[in-house]
């Protein structure tokens, strides 16, 4: 079997309210040694949004789908994007003979909520994050570690220590970024997702360099 490419397609809402969950998920993906990928990461006018999404799903061996935000908007219409992109990823998975993506994780706000509106995914074991960044982070961590035979240093130590460490690392990262933002005097107030991922990676590097 070919080596996994350690890229994770992130299919989740991109609104302000969801940002704490998004930041936590992106952080966990990076700490696990993977790269989060988002449809908005590249400015490319030559491709429409759907082409970018399909291209990303194809490029990434892993995909993560949060279907917790499908509520009705002010026009009484649900948000179709996340379930639609999940459908694209599942379609790819089932249409490729070797099973397509190496790993696919579905997150929702509450357990079994999908039974009422999205029963086709019964059996796919969506996991609940209860709108908690900490729980979402742990779900992502356990998911990636469970797929990763090549994972870090001392797997037992990581798995046992992580519930506490992930949260404290994220808090450290957030505190450091608050300080960084302050030094940029407003320049970073609207940090794009590509900037968030870049910052997490640099922060991880900085923590290794500073201790060397």
């Amino acid at each position: 079997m070919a080596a996994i490419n350690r890229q994770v397609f992130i299919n989740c809402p991109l609104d302000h309210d969801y940002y704490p969950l998004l930041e936590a998920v992106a952080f966990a993906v990076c700490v696990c040694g993977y790269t989060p990928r988002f449809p908005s990461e590249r400015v490319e006018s030559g491709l429409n949004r759907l082409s970018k999404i399909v291209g990303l799903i194809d490029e990434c061996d892993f995909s993560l789908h949060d279907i917790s935000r499908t509520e009705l908007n002010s026009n009484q219409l649900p948000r179709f994007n996340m379930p639609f992109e999940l459908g694209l990823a599942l379609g790819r998975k089932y249409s490729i003979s070797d099973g397509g993506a190496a790993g696919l994780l579905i997150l929702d706000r509450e357990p079994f909520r999908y039974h009422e509106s999205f029963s086709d995914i019964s059996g796919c074991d969506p996991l609940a994050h209860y709108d908690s960044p900490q729980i979402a982070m742990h779900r992502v961590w356990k998911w990636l570690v469970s797929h990763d035979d090549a994972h870090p240093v001392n797997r037992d130590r990581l798995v046992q220590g992580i519930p506490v460490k992930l949260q404290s690392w994220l808090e450290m990262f957030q505190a450091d970024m608050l300080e960084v933002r302050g030094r940029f005097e407003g320049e970073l107030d609207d940090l794009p997702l590509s900037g968030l991922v870049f910052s997490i990676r640099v922060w991880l590097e900085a923590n290794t360099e500073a201790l060397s």
Partner: protein
Amino acid sequence: MSGTGVATRKAEEDDRDIFVESIRLIPPLPYSPTRIPAEKLRNTIIQVVRERQAKVREASLNGSDQ
């Protein structure tokens, strides 16, 4: 170094081991962090991390002296 200082150092080294592995495994970013001054951001993050870690070490050493 006192017990507190040793424990802090050990925890830092554990974290570093994990971060080193993470960085080694993460594939290169397939895109650039658009719209932000990347080099300036990188340098500032590294500076802030170093300052924080220096403070933590100093506090753990001071605490252990008491």
